[in-house]
């Protein structure tokens, strides 16, 4: 299986990077590990994806969550914007 390394960032509703959010594959057409990746201090993460269609999800402490669709073989940065959770509102 060929894995393509993809860079991404998680931002809050105001566009600010979110540290410590967990990113995982919510669904996809290829076999991807059911782990979650933690964003670094700058909200960034790196995930490897096989060829195919994927929806990535991000969840932060407090319940804010967001999603982004991508293709495994693409090369642009994945940007996931979190919606304000009811808890934060």
């Amino acid at each position: 299986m060929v894995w393509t390394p993809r860079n991404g960032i998680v931002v809050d509703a105001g566009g600010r990077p979110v540290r410590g959010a967990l990113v995982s594959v919510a669904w996809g057409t290829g076999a991807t590990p059911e782990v979650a990746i933690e964003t670094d201090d700058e909200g960034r993460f790196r995930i490897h994806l096989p060829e195919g269609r994927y929806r990535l999800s991000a969840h932060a402490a407090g319940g804010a969550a967001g999603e982004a669709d991508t293709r495994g073989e693409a090369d642009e940065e994945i940007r996931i914007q979190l919606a304000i959770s009811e808890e934060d509102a």
Partner: protein
Amino acid sequence: MVNLNSVSNPSFSALESTVAEASAKIRTGSAGSAASPGSLSAEMLLVKGKGEPIAPPAPIGTRSILESVIGTDDRTRILDTEADPWRRICALRISSPNGVFVGTGWLAGPRTMMTAGHCVHHPQMSGWASSIEVSPARNGAHQPKVLSSKRFSTLDVWVNEHDPDFDLAAIHLDEPVGDELGWFGVGSLPANALTGFMVNISGYPADRGNGTEQWFHRNRVLRVSDRRVFYDVDTFGGHSGAPVFLYEDEGAEPRVVAIHAYGVGGTPSAFGITANSGVRIIPEVFDQITAWVQQDAA
């Protein structure tokens, strides 16, 4: 048949595996020496024996066929995680050269924790994990015990090919935490015996409690291949490495028959089913787990 060979991270010496046998094998578990309050959640949630699916999948067209939460999300949070058998399940925080990952593991012996191979070695970690923090019975911010390990083993075929059929690993612990908390029994059952069994999965997903809360679901084995088990049990990222366990009958002890690893994207489309999956414990996998447990006991 493929001979399974154990490989360990560079700081740890490797062990040769044993060769598979054709017969079913059973290894008993332990409830541990620590007193366990009766678990109401275990009494109410765990499924035993064979049966019809608890929640039949929603009709095609009303759900995404790609989600690892299949149809409606039926997971339940486990709050009494220090009761048996929940305390045999652990939250994992995996540090690697490429960042931090969240997964699940389960005790298979006093000093041996089993998990998915990709929790110890994967290209997206840039190879081997550097260290893994193990938190048995974690319940949110409450962590009864936190252990750390830098000694892992997986299979050479996993390291070389990352084939989902061989996605399993062991985390070797310095402290015999299983003596107190217990460990799961393991069983390699024939495919025709597994099909239709009700199975239980509990682990630490990212979308509920950010990998700090234990969430459970149960349903039916839909299909069994040579090396994988496919089931319509809801899971999410972070559940990787969780035990897929069953009770052969009402009085039986919990027995792990697979190690959860993949959402529905890992199920071959030719099967025509929507299912999540894990690595099946077949006799040669059983032997490898036993070898790792014995190695840790020595």
